[in-house]
């Protein structure tokens, strides 16, 4: 099939994009387009028939990667492939690079953007889970100016975020890994590059040989990515090892109630999430000890 007709806008600045959106009778009639790797399929299949498409591809300065002390900022329009290959991203937030390698296929990542993946907010997608795990901050610009939203407040339902219809996501700010930090992303998918049935992003900070802090986000098990807060609390102050990781796995599984769909049963996802938590914590801890 082919996209239904739409009015096409190609702003060259974020201000202009916001002005176009907020100037429409109903901004809900419009769709912002970044890499198009999720939006184009919806348009081609006519599952989405917006009256207006506001294409961000000509907006300048929205794809930069910059580091300011303990924050790494990735422009929303930065292509996934660019971030994946960036030495700055690898050094500051290696979890982003590892997760991007699992997003679709290279030809998809060559166009797909960091911001598009997060704004699309597919609960099975990797980047939303990474953002939630790391407590990334989303920078949004709307008619009222700029605001920043914490990841914990950003994903608010199936394919739904705190962004309003006349707002544009301009950048994502990730905290930079400090000493003693390690992270890992692991998932179970039917085929390399497919959306996973379940995935886990884990980040640990060791102090000596004790877990000072652990953060875990699970994808593919609900309407949004889910923080495994119970498991995180149990790990704080614990000695890293099989016992602690098994307890975290059990706590994670117990707190999840995934639905059954064509890809996997809820019970299977619940089980797999636990297994993945154990694996992700093991790898993250190894990396925190410097055994990358």
């Amino acid at each position, binding site marked *: 099939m082919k996209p239904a007709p739409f009015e096409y806008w190609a702003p060259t600045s974020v201000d202009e994009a916001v002005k176009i959106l907020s100037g429409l009778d109903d901004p809900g009639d419009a769709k912002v387009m970044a890499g198009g790797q999720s939006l184009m*399929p919806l348009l081609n299949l006519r599952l989405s028939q917006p009256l207006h498409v506001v294409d961000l591809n000509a907006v300048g300065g929205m794809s930069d990667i910059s580091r300011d002390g303990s924050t790494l900022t990735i422009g929303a329009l930065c292509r996934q492939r660019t971030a994946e290959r960036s030495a700055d991203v690898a050094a500051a937030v290696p979890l982003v690079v590892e997760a991007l390698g699992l997003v679709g*296929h290279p030809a998809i990542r060559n166009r797909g953007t960091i911001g598009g993946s997060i704004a699309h907010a597919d609960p099975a997608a990797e980047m939303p889970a990474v953002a939630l795990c790391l407590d990334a901050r989303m920078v949004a610009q709307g008619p009222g100016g700029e605001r920043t939203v914490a990841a914990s407040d950003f994903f608010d339902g199936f394919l739904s975020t705190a962004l309003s219809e006349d707002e544009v996501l301009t950048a994502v700010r990730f905290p930079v890994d400090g000493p003693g930090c390690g992270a890992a992303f692991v998932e179970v998918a039917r085929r390399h590059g497919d959306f996973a049935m379940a995935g886990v992003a884990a980040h640990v900070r060791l102090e000596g040989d004790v877990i000072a802090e652990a953060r875990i986000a699970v994808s593919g098990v609900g309407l949004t990515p889910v923080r495994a807060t119970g498991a995180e609390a149990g790990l704080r102050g614990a000695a890293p090892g099989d016992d602690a990781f098994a307890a975290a796995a059990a706590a994670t599984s117990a707190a999840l109630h995934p639905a059954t769909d064509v890809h996997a049963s809820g019970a299977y996802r619940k089980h797999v999430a636990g297994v993945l938590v154990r694996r992700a914590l093991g790898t993250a801890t190894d990396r925190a000890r410097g055994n990358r």
Partner: protein
Amino acid sequence: MSHREITVTVNGAVRTATVEPRRTLADFLRQDLGLTATHLGCEHGVCGACTVLLDGDTVRSCLALAVHADGHEVTTVEGIAEPGEMHPVQSALWESGAFQCGFCTPGFVMTIYGLEQDARAGRPCPRSRTEIREELSGNICRCSGYQAIVDGAEAALTAATATATTTTEGAR
């Protein structure tokens, strides 16, 4: 709907056209330019049959708009070899018998061509069969000729890597 005038360098030739913004890059190539070797299987990014290069990077032409190519360079499978000759990637696939009905073949050729360009330029590219399979996992062959396709890709990439090494050594 308002139309847009676009100028795209396709296989080295500058082409101008007036398109509706909703025109996909795939339909622009096939219907407006008559370059019908780029195939459309699924039109939602899953099968890889429509893979082309945009400014040297592989992309799904069904998931890009023609207007996205305005001012840019597109390479399709028609553009990788001289007329009457096969490109080394095409020869390697031919010698491996890497096609049956051939529908998916242009997409595979372009995916492998993208990797082969990396290999020739000395950039990292997949070496092991596992890595090659991972890279090719975004292309689907309904005739399931994967074994032979991986053979062809391996041969093409090995040859290209050898060329890159020789060139580097020659330059020393």
